[in-house]
C-alpha cells in the first residue's frame, strides 16, 4: 500500500524536526501540572473528609481528578496545541514545491491525504498514551475505575482525529504554516465557543449549538458512557474535513 509509504515518511519527518518534540513536551508539562494540581486538591479534600465521614463517601479519585482532567482540561490544551502538529502537513510541501513531485508519483491524492492523517493521528495517540502514566500512578495510591478512564481516552482520540482533519484542511489551503495554524485554531475555537451561546438562543438553536460544540461531546466519554451521538459527531467532523481537503487538493486540476 502506497498510503503507508507516505505514512512512514510523515512520521519520520515528525521525529526529525523539533516541532513534534516541543509539542509533545509542552503537552506533557502542562498535563503534568494540571494533574499535580488536581491530585493535590484531592488530597486536601481527603484530609477534610477524614474528619467528616459523611463527606468521605463521595470521595472518588476517578470522578474528581480524572473526569475533569480528561474531558475538560486536556481538550482545551489540545485545542491550543494540535494546530501546531498539523500546520506543516501540506503547507510545507506546497511552499518547498515537494508537493509537485509527490502528486506526480503514481499515488492517488486520497492515499497521500490518509497517509498524512494517520501519521498525525499516530503521533497524537503516542502523546496521549504518555499521559496514561498519571492514572497508573494514581492507581497505586487509590482505587480507580478503569472504564471511565478508557472511554475518556477514546473520546480524546476521536476528538484528536477531528482536530487533525480540520488542521489538514487549513494546511491544504495555504502555503504558509502560520496561516494554517492560526486558521485551524480559529475554526476549533469557534466550534468550542458555539456551545456557550446555547443558553442565549431559543431551544431549537440552543440544541443545535450545543450539538455542534466540539468540546461538549467529551462530557459523556468522561462519565464512562460511549454515546453513538458523540462518536458520530467526531467521525462526521473528521470525514467531512478530510473530504474537503481532498477537494482542495484536487482543485489544482480545475483552477485556472
Amino acid at each position, binding site marked *: 500500500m502506497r498510503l503507508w509509504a507516505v505514512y512512514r515518511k510523515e512520521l519520520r519527518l515528525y521525529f526529525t524536526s523539533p516541532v513534534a518534540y516541543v509539542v509533545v513536551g509542552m503537552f506533557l508539562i502542562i498535563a503534568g501540572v494540571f494533574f499535580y494540581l488536581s491530585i493535590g486538591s484531592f488530597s486536601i479534600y481527603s484530609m477534610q473528609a477524614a474528619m467528616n465521614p459523611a463527606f468521605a463517601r463521595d470521595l472518588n479519585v476517578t470522578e474528581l481528578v480524572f473526569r475533569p482532567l480528561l474531558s475538560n482540561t486536556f481538550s482545551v490544551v489540545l485545542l491550543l496545541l494540535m494546530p501546531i502538529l498539523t500546520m506543516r502537513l501540506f503547507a510545507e510541501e506546497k511552499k518547498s514545491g515537494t*508537493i509537485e*513531485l509527490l502528486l506526480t508519483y*503514481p499515488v492517488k491524492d486520497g492515499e497521500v491525504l490518509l497517509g498524512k492523517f494517520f501519521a498525525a493521528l499516530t503521533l497524537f495517540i503516542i502523546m496521549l498514551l504518555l499521559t496514561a502514566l498519571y492514572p497508573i500512578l494514581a492507581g497505586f495510591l487509590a482505587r480507580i475505575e478503569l472504564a471511565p478512564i478508557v472511554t475518556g481516552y477514546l473520546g480524546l482520540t476521536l476528538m484528536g482525529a477531528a482536530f487533525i482533519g480540520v488542521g489538514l484542511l487549513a494546511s491544504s489551503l495555504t502555503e504558509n504554516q502560520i496561516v494554517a495554524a492560526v486558521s485551524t485554531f480559529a475554526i476549533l475555537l469557534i466550534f468550542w465557543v458555539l456551545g456557550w451561546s446555547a443558553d442565549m438562543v431559543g431551544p431549537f438553536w440552543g440544541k443545535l449549538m450545543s450539538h455542534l460544540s466540539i468540546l461538549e461531546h467529551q462530557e459523556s466519554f468522561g462519565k464512562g458512557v460511549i454515546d453513538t451521538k458523540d462518536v458520530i459527531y467526531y467521525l462526521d467532523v473528521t470525514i467531512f474535513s478530510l473530504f474537503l481537503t481532498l477537494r482542495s487538493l484536487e482543485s489544482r486540476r480545475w483552477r485556472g
Partner: protein
Amino acid sequence: MIYVDKLTKFYGPIAAIQEVSFTIEKGEIIGFLGPNGAGKTTTMRILSCFMPASSGQARVAGLDCFTQSIEVRKRIGYLPENVPLYPEMPVAAYLDFVAELKGVGRSERRGRVAEVMERCMISDVQQRLIGKLSKGYRQRVGLAQALINEPEVLILDEPTIGLDPKQIIEIRQLIKSLAGQRTVILSTHILPEASMVCQGVIIINRGRIVASGGWDQLQNQVFPSRRIELQIDGPAGAVEEALGRIPGVSKVASAESAAGLAAFVVESPGERDVRGEIFQLAADRRWKLLEMHQIGTSLEEIFLKLVAGEETPTQDAAEQVP
C-alpha cells in the same frame, strides 16, 4: 512516445501556452527551448500530470495524461525546476520512499536504490541529509528519484541550472547515457547544452511553438541559404560586381574588415557550393584571395532569429549576433 496536440493552458485570463503541438519518438532526447516565461514549465507540468490543460490533448506512451493519469505517472520520471526534495531526509531513505511510492516491490527496492545511486554518483553521500548536500548533489538526487522506477519517459525541467561547469558536464553525460533506452524531454535556456545533449529541439516562444525538428532541418528552415565569408585583396567595386555574376550567387554584401581589405559575404542556395568558382575567379583576375570560409549557423543564431523574429519580422536579428 510523447504526443501533444493543441495544448492550451490558461491561468485566469492569461494563456501560458496556446495550441502547442509536437510529437517525440521513442528513444529521442529532445531539448525544449525558449526564453523565460515562454511556457516550458507549464507544458512539462501538464505532461507530468501535475495539472491538466485547459484544452487539447497530451499523451505519453499512448495514454492520456488526464484520464489515465496514474498509468502515465507510472511510466514517467519527472524532475521539476527547483528540485524540491525533503531536506530532513537522508538520501538513501528518501530514494527508498520514492521507490515505494512508484511501486517498486519491497524485494527489489534495496537493489534498485543502490543501482540508481551508483549511476548518479551519489553512493558516497547516501547517509547524509539531503538538506546538507551541495546543489550539485541535490540535483543528482533529483535525477536519481526520477530514474528510480526505470521510466520510459523522463521529463527534466532545467536539469543543469545553478550548477558549476564540472557538475554541468557530469549531468549532461548522465542524460546522454540514457539516450536510446528512454525518451527524454529536457527544458533549458542554455543553447549549447541543447546542441550537445539533444538530437532535436522544440522551440517555444510566448506560449507557441515556433520551430521544431532536428538540427539540419532547423538550419535549413531558418537559414535556407549557404553563406561564405571572404577577404580579397583587390579593387572592391570590381570584386563585388564579379562575385555577383557567378551563377547561383543570390546576394553579395560587403562587410567591414581591417586594413582596408575588401570583405564580402556571399550567399547562395543551400545546395549550391560556389567556393570553387570564387577561387577560380580570384586566380583569373590575379586578386589575392586571403580568406574564405563558410559561415556555420550556430544555434544561437537560429534561436534568436526565431524568437526575436516574431517581434520584428523584417529585421534579420541573426546578423546582429557578435
